């Protein structure tokens, strides 16, 4: 029986074994990578969803505020109200025919 120099260094054995199945190792890392990618994308998806929901709520709040502002604006700018305020407070009146000068530019 020929005596061979057996190397019992564990690290070397592992490395040599790994080098023989390089393809499997690459696959293994791909699996790990894709798993991580799934986790990251799921997380990002959730974050986007949360942000989206917040924006919708913000939009709703703004919409409601807008509606209230429209009512406020319309109530404050009611034409007869303004007409009265302008007459009473500012002493303004509609121009009569005598006030009007009609010009035609040539």
């Amino acid at each position, binding site marked *: 029986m020929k005596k061979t120099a057996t190397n019992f260094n564990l690290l070397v054995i592992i490395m040599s074994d790994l080098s023989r199945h390089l393809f499997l190792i690459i696959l293994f890392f791909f699996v790990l990578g894709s798993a991580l990618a799934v986790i990251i994308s799921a997380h990002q*998806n*959730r974050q986007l*969803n949360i942000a989206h*929901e917040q924006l919708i709520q913000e939009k709703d709040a703004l919409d409601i505020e807008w509606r209230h502002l429209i009512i406020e604006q319309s109530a404050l700018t009611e*034409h007869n109200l303004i007409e009265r305020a302008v007459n009473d407070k500012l002493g303004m009146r509609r121009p009569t025919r005598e006030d009007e000068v*009609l*010009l035609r530019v040539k």
Partner: protein
Amino acid sequence: MTVTATIQKPRKRPSKKGQAKRKVVPSFVQWRFVVVLVVVLAVFAALASRAAYIQVIQPDYLIEHGDNRTIRVRDIPSYRGQISDRNGQSLAVSVPAQAIYADPKRISENNGFADMRLWQALAEVLDTNVDDLVARVDNPKNRFIYLQRQVTPAMASYVKKLKIPGVYLRNEAKRYYPAGEVSAHVIGFTDVDDVGLEGIERLYNQWLTGTPDKRKIRRDAKNRQVEIMEQEAGKKAKDVSLTIDQRIQALAYREIKEATVLYQAASASVIIVDVHTGDILAMANTPSYNPNNRSTVSSYRVRNRAITDAYEPGSALKPMAIIAALENGSFQADSTIDTSPGWKRLGGSRIEDSRNYGEISITEVIKFSSNMGTSAMALSMPKEVLIDFYYNMGLMSDTGINMVGESDGIFHERPRWSDHEISSLSFGYNISVTTAQLARMYATIANGGMKRPLNIVQNMTPTLEPERVMSEETAHAVLMMMETVTQDGGSGTSAAVPGYRVAGKTGTSRKADVGGYGEAYVNIFAGIAPVSDPQIAVVVLINEPAGDLYYAGETAAPVFSKIVSNTMQMLNVPPDAMTVDIVLESQLHASR
């Protein structure tokens, strides 16, 4: 570890020399190994079977419970569309409000009446008696009772803070009408459930109503939405843009409101129509109501009289007889008619003018509003021909607005018309028309004889096509004749508008009563402005003036004048009865 320790117990007696150095060979104890193996396997088997049980046999139950804690359906409320005027000013807006409701079953389950102070507080904020309130909800068989609809956010948050078990809030919408009574008749209103009941709200109910977006979502422990599972887009509520110009509408309403009080009238209506498009710029009635608070409004105030109420228009219809006579060729624009002696008998009934005008031109027939004159013209052609003109003018049909409650007027087609009936038709009796129909007739004259449907909503396909009902020459001739009405000596001088040429016709008619015509009057002034390039047709109708003034020339005509004067300014129409100073552009800049 303990196992190996027991195994390592020495078997052989140790020798005296080198006790510690002796190597002990561990022996294998079969039964211990088996026990350990079985225990370990049993633990794994138990775990695996439990996992299998959860995953395979009973997953539904757990999934359901998980979903119950995380899945929610959220509605994005859809508010009713807005109604705005032609310039985009909002006339009807929905805002969120809340309804307070009670679930009597929950109240009794959770011992809701334990703290009566809460109910006392609730009754106070709802403005009711606490005993009545409790009596309403004290029946565990009921599941849903509205306590109050459309409460303000402040009140809703107060009720929420009371935390009465079984009393909850529900989202809904409240509709506000910023223009209030000014446009109440046109816009109409909705009930508490957001269903349109009157006016545009009813006509465009489907269009204005949307359905909420529904989303099925998954939320996390912090109540954040992390996943949208299903999404169902609702029907979006659409807006309605009216042809009404709110500035004109406001001034028109103010004027007829003042007139109603001044002339002690039962009601009044006004319509302003853009003659080129048929757009209704203003449509107002008195008495009106506040659409934001209808709790005390009687139904007679809600009626849009301008389209629902038909009256015999009296002399305001006289241009029809002239149009028919001119179109038929039985009279020319420069013909004269002998109206002396100012009265005549037709089939036992008397037709008369207010005085004997003698031989007058057709223009003067309109100017003085001569019954004798129009009677002669109406009788100058076959009766069917005359009546066909009335039909073609749209006086017996709808105006095209399609609004709820619109009347087509009242006209009884008879197989045989007596001469007296035809004569009366020529000065506006035996036919009843609405203010809107009359406005359409005047708009047609102003538009050079092209009859257009009236419309009140922008960008809607018209229901009727424009149609020529008289020649342009006839329309122009009648317009010129009607201008004399507002000039010196005419019957409607107070309708004159400073700076503008206006044409029009007064109409004072007695209202038919049981057994004849009574002492109640309808005053109408229908007119067109400006004459040189007609833009608007305006009809002012004052119903049953009870004061000293009851002639249209004294009531409706001045109101017409004020409304047209202001409307011309609003629409920026250049005055056509003023001298125009011609300046060169260079002069204009130099003077700045």
